[in-house]
């Protein structure tokens, strides 16, 4: 489907780019939010990323996956925006303690409640951990694909994912305990 619309754009149909907006904006927004932690900034990042992608469509290799190429642009734009806004990615390497979570409690939550809880937890993780988790689980990208999007080595990704999983469970546990109080 992507290649059909890419051909249309190459043939001069600018409106065909709306297909890519529909398909990829939500995940792009989630990726940007993982890094910049602010909805308005994330919207700015995704807008800039789409415009950059349109400008550089002739550089996109048709045999590659459009999503990998585009999410790389989003990630780079998000990191650049953080730098521009002089917000530092301070990764304290926080080690949370309690990672034992009540499975039943999780499943008892309504869809929206669970969604809010998960996204609140991801907001508390560092940009790297939040990004790695979303790319790995939400997009079901392999470690190799995550590396292509982020530029991190496979070994680095495995370390980040390991830490991220642990911290995510701990933060979820803390948020659920807070909710019960």
């Amino acid at each position: 489907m992507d290649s059909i619309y890419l051909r249309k754009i190459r043939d001069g149909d600018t409106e065909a780019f709306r297909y890519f907006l529909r398909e990829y904006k939500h995940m792009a927004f989630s990726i940007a939010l993982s890094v910049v932690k602010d909805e308005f900034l994330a919207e700015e990042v995704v807008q800039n990323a789409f415009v950059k992608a349109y400008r550089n469509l002739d550089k996109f290799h048709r045999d590659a996956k459009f999503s990998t190429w585009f999410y790389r642009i989003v990630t780079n734009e998000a990191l650049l925006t953080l730098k521009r806004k002089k917000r530092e990615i301070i990764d304290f390497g926080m080690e949370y303690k309690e990672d034992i979570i009540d499975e039943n409690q999780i499943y008892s939550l309504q869809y929206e409640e669970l969604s809010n809880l998960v996204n609140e937890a991801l907001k508390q993780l560092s940009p790297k951990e939040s990004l790695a988790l979303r790319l790995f689980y939400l997009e079901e990208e392999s470690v190799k694909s995550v590396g292509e999007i982020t530029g991190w080595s496979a070994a680095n990704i495995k370390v980040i994912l390991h830490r991220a999983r642990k911290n995510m469970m701990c933060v979820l546990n803390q948020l659920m305990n807070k909710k019960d109080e």
Partner: protein
Amino acid sequence: MNKDQKQELLAKIMKNSLVEMPFSDFDDQVMLRIQQETVATSQSRRDRKRSSIFFALGCAAGMILSFLLSVYQWEGVQNGMFKLFAQVVFATILVYFVYQIKAFVKYQGPAQ
């Protein structure tokens, strides 16, 4: 809960981590920016072409003028000084325009 069960639970939980774009006019905003950029890009391409043509014409005219000044004898004019003056003016204009073009290309660079 063992490690595999935790991973399975996390994988299920993470399916809820997609955040939808909350701004309803997002698509239109992006398309508007793209259209504006397309118009600006084609306009700047036309301007660059025009400026290159005029620069080339100006260089040619200057070279012809320099040549003519060196060849013909002008009455009542100290040929040597006038020739030198004309060539200095021509060289100054040439350097100025080369500088302007470099600055223009540098300005256009990030937009590409």
